[in-house]
Every structure is written in C-alpha cells, then in structure tokens.
C-alpha cells in the first residue's frame, strides 16, 4: 500500500486511541474529585488532582502557557474541546476523521461513516452542552465511540496491510498511555509509601485501575485487596490484560513480524527485544530497578519503535 496511506491509517488509529485515553483519564479524575478525601493528606508532591491528567497526557506545559491554575473546568475544557491543544478529544477526533477522509478508499465505508458520525456529533458540542449532559456521560460517549470504531474495524476490514497499520497505531499509542498512567502513580510504589494503606490508598489504586478498565479484572484475577505490586504486575507483565504493556507488545511484535519480511530485520529485532523483556520479566526486578526508571526506559523504546516504523514504512526516504 502507499506509504502515505499507511501513515494516515497509523495516525488515525493513534488519535482515536488517544481520545479514548484522555476520556478515561478525565473520567477517573472526575470521579476521584468527588471523593471526600483531601488529596494533600497523602503528602504527595502533586497536590492538585486536576494536574494529574495534564501531566499524564504530557500537556501541562501547554496548559500553563495560558492558565495559572488547574481548576477543574479549565482542565476539562482544555482536554476535551480546546482546538489549540493537539491532544484534546476535539483535536484528536478531528485529526482522525481528516485522516480517514484522506484515505477513505483504504478503509471500509462503515468505518468512515462511523467516524464521520462521531465527528459530526462532536463538532457542534460546546462546554455548556457537555455540562448539561454530564462530564461522565461525555467521557462515556467518547469511550463508546472508540469501542464502536474498533468494533467496526474488527468486523468489516480486510486483514491486510491497512489493518496492520491501524493495529500498530492503536497499540503503540496504548502502550505509551498505559505506561504514562502508571508512571504518574509510581511514587505509590516506593517502599516508603508501600505501607500507607487505608481508604485513600484504596481509592487511588481503584481509580488507576478503572482508568484502564482493570478494576474488575483485578478482582477476577487476584480476588484480594489491591496492592501496588500486583497492580504493576497486572499492567506491565500480564498478557491477558488488554491494556497492559505486555499485551500491547504482543500485538506490535506479531504485526511487525509479518510486515517485516527479512529475518534479520532491525525493526523486528527491536520489537522482539522489547517484547522479550516483558515476556520474561519479573515483577521483583521491576520493583528493584524502580518502576519509574523501568517505565521511562519503556517509553523511550516505544517512542523509538514508532520513529523506526515511520522511517521504514510511513515516510520513507528514497
């Protein structure tokens, strides 16, 4: 397929995944903010609950360029609707839909119509109408649109290169996101914080798990209290957890495996290496190395992988 087409598909998928993840973050922050516990009781370095989604999505600098204080409605506006924030839900859906329009011949009509419908619904929304429908209802709507699009993709698309590049985009973005979400809470895994315990702690972990749809799964797997160690294990190493790093790397590795034909392919080797670290990794080692350091290293490698995919397939140089 055309490199330019593959590039648009890759970014279409990334933008949809990013919109979904932003909605997840906002949803959880919103719910946490309703709790009666003052966050600073935890003695965290970040005392502002609404700063968390800014830091996680990497948009804090941009936010503070125009805002003094992370007030709830300012952050919500910024991450939901701000057209000047390239990671806002509005910007992501707009970009995804524009990519889809450009390459609509490479996706199915159902996919295009589904995404176009989502965009037509979103573009007439303002903050007042979101408040009227409810922040949670809006976040749910975004998540459902993303689920729907993925379902339409899964159910209608030819299993070929176009499908592969969409899956690559989705999982590179998701791996990046899960790692970022985990990293914002890494301090909870520090030995000194391990014995904090109590209700506040419980809600902190529960909200983190909810933001990656892992709360119910945790209960099923462990049938036990939430411990930081198990959360890390679940979101990094378990391959049956669809948003875990391991799970994302399974898909990326498989997909690159058949996109790269040569056996000694450097791109396939890098993906394989990163995959092996997750496949054979142990929770103890991660904790010993420090979760933050581990995640930083992972983020850098995933970002490299994205760049290499780009050089190789999407924006090749003659």
């Amino acid at each position, binding site marked *: *397929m*055309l490199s330019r087409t593959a590039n648009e598909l890759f970014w279409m998928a990334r933008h949809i995944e990013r919109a979904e993840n932003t909605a997840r973050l906002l949803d959880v922050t919103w719910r946490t903010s309703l709790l009666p516990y003052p966050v600073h009781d935890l003695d965290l370095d970040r005392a502002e609950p609404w700063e968390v989604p800014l830091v996680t999505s990497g948009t804090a600098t941009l936010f503070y360029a125009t805002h003094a204080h992370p007030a709830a409605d300012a952050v919500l506006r910024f991450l939901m609707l701000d057209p000047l924030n390239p990671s806002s839900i509005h910007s992501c859906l707009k970009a995804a839909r*524009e990519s889809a329009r450009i390459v609509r011949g490479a996706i199915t009509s159902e996919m295009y119509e589904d995404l*176009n419908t989502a965009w037509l619904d979103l573009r007439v929304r303002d903050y007042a109408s979101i408040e009227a429908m409810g922040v949670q209802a809006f976040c749910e709507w975004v998540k459902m649109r993303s689920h729907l699009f993925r379902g339409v993709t899964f159910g209608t698309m030819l299993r070929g290169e176009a499908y592969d590049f969409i899956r690559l985009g989705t999982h590179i973005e998701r791996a990046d996101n899960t790692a970022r979400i985990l990293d914002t809470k890494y301090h909870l895994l520090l030995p000194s914080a391990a014995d904090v315990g109590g209700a506040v702690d419980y809600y902190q972990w529960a909200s983190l798990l909810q933001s990656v749809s892992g709360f119910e799964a945790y209960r099923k797997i462990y049938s036990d209290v939430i411990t930081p160690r198990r959360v890390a294990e679940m979101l990094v190493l378990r391959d049956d957890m669809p948003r875990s790093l391991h799970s994302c790397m399974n898909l990326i590795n498989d997909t690159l495996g058949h996109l790269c034909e040569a056996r000694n392919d450097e791109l396939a080797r890098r993906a394989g290496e990163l995959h092996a670290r997750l496949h054979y990794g142990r929770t103890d080692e991660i904790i010993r190395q420090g979760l933050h350091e581990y995640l930083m290293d992972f983020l850098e490698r995933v970002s490299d992988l994205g760049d290499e995919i780009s050089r190789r397939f999407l924006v090749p140089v003659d």
Partner: protein
Amino acid sequence: MHDALKGVRAHYRPFADWLARTPADRVAQKKDEAERAFHRVGITFAVYGEDEGTERLIPFDIVPRIIPQSEWTMLERGLLQRVAALNAFLADIYGAQRILDANVIPRERVIGNIQFRAEMAGVLVPDGTYAHVAGIDLVRAGAGQWHVLEDNLRVPSGVSYMLENRRMMMRLFPELFATQSIRPVQHYPDLLLENLRAVAPAGEESPTVAVLTPGPWNSAYFEHSFLAQQMGVELVEGQDLFVRDDKVYMRTTRGPQRVHVLYRRVDDDFLDPTAFRADSTLGVPGLFDAYRKGRVTLANAIGTGVADDKSIYPYVPDMIRYYLGEDPVLANVPTWKMYVAEERAYALAHLDELVVKEVHGAGGYGMLIGPMSTAAEREDFRARILARPDNYIAQPTLALSTCPTMVDAGVAPRHIDLRPYVLSGKTAHVVPGGLTRVALREGSLVVNSSQGGGTKDTWVVAD
C-alpha cells in the same frame, strides 16, 4: 414531467402516484433522511474561497428525473457517435491533421487555441483514445428537442453523484424500484476499471491502475477517493509517485511499485513541472517523458481540452460528418462565433435575447444571460466581445425543460440539464443515466453546484 396537453407524462406516472398518495410529512421525512445520510457518508465538496476545510453538501432532490428507454436509445447512439468523432479529431490534429488540410475547421482555430498542446504532436496513445471519460452536457428545450450544450473531455466530474444518488434513491424508495424496470448504473466503476486496464501500455498483462488526485483540498476529492475505492485501486497524489528510467512508480510500504495507467484528475498544466507549469507541486517530474515514450497511459490524454473548447464546439457536427460519414444524431445549440464579423454583428444587435459565453469559461462563470441581464451588463459584454472577439460565442437562450423539484413551498418546476458519462477505450460504453443537475432558484437557468445548483437521480425506464 408534465405534458402541456396530456397531464403527467406516462413514464412519470408511478412516481407521481407515489407522491399523490404519500402524506407531506412522510415526504419531508424522506428528504431529511437523505440529507442526514449524505452528511454521514461525507458526500461533500469543498468550497474555494471559504475557510479551509469547509465542506458542503450539494443539494439532493428526491424527485427523480425520468427518461423513457426509447428516448435513451437515441441519446446513447448520439453520445457514442459524438465521442467517437471527438476522439478521431484529437488523434487527427495531434497526427496527420487531415481535417485541417481539408479546411473543415480553420487551422488557426485549432493550432492557435491555448488548449492545443504542441508537445503532443506525434505522441502515440494506445488505441488512439484521448478522451477515455467524457461528460457530455445535454439539455432538452422547446418542444422537447435534445441539444448538446457542452462537451467535457478534460477531467469531467460528477459521476460519483450519479452513483450515490442512485444508492440513496434505492434506500429511500425501494418499492418504486421493485415495481418498475429502472436500468442500473452501479456497474460504472467496473466498466471504468476495465476500460483503463484495456488502454495500458502494450505488453502489460496485469497492469496497475491508480487514480491521481490533486489532494484532499480539491473540491472533487470525495469523487476521486470514491472512484479509487470502488475500483479497488490506489488513490495517489503527485508526491506518492516518481519516475525512474521513464517508468512511473508509487512509493509503497513494500518499496517502489510500478504504475501503468493513471486515471488522472489533475489538469494538464499541473501534471509535470518539468514539462508544463514549473510551479506545480501537484505533479510528477518526468511524467510527460514517460508518457511520451508510451511507458504509462494517462486517462484522459494530455491535450484533450482543445476538443471541448467552446470555440471548437460549433464544428463538432462537421467532425461527425467528416470522420464517420454520418449525420449527427444529437444537435448542437445554434452558435454564433464572435470572430466571424457577420455573426458578431447579429449577436451584438440581439444581446438581450442571447447567452454569451467565454470560450474557456466553465462552472457557469463569465457568462451573460441576455433576457436576465441589465443594460450595464450588456454594455460590459459588448465591450469585451469587441475587444476580444475570439474569446466569446453567443447562443439563443434556450427554454430549458423543467422537472418537478422539492422546494420550500412544495413541489415546483425547476430547470434541469443532464450529463451522461461516455467511456472509450477498446470499446465504448454509456451507462443508462447520468447526472441530472437542477437550478434550484426559481427561474434560474444555471445548474452549476457553485451557483446554487442541486442534483437528482436519473432513471432510464422501460417504455
């Protein structure tokens, strides 16, 4: 739809009956449903001069335009005849120029035309086909006589609307399709692909076809991507292609891949910055050389504009007689050529009755409609004609036929035209129907979408 004497014409009867027995709110609901569906599917066009990314729907009218089969049989014969002659003309003027030697058309009209591409002289194109896709604009006027208003041989657009309009009508009115014999048009993309593959450079057993678009901001981008998708071929931009050793390749995820046929929707001027406009960023350097050497086929060929120019139009009936030895099936609209002194004198004396058109104008711009013009506008055109007589033609103002159309006040007659699409290559085809354009403003004769025109589905039905 209505006959002056006998009421509803027979071929409109089933639709008129449906309309008569359907409550107004149900009709309005159908209209809404159509609009929402068009938005969702994204059948839009970009509007130049408005914000980047502005997308609009071309208004769609749910009342079909219906043509009886017997009338269509005549039209089809006339269209194939006309396009065959136009292709013969193009092959001739870029070859032996017999028609110019025979003085059927004045040499300077052709050679001096800015649409004439001297670079094409002696270039051999597969099967001698230049206009692979032609859109011929037809109107019915007066007592029902059909006329050719214009030939479009460069990058005629609108066929996606023909196809999408039909899809919409089948969705809205399945019962009308079930009870009448309405000839299908949806095989157009298959015919187009077959035609394009058939004109690939000789010796290519399995030629690769691609659609070349100027890009997502082009007003017809929807159509380009639609056709590429329907044919199952790549939609490429100039930046996706490169030429090496006179062969054209596209940049793919698996490396360079050879392209043999480009269904190009980029104008001649922009195709190759090394051969034509140097400032073009839409084209492919070296494409013309590859083309000239027969390593890639362009559809349509370069240089077809000279045959659809309005200054050549008056001579098309002569071409038909000259190349085919037949009488034209379809009449031209009588045309006064402003560079001929006596014709000019007549036109200048009758500006208030005539339509004056620029020979290179398109889209309904640069035109004077005498009966609707002000004295100042006529004076302006008089001065322009006198300054550049070559640049204008004049025609009588036709009483274009009307078709019932949904307007705010209900159903009312509006003026229409018809653009059928003629495919030429190893064989020639016309799908039964075309794009009917309708002037939505009351009394307006201008059907162009850029000026308030809409579209209708076109049904060819058994008599």
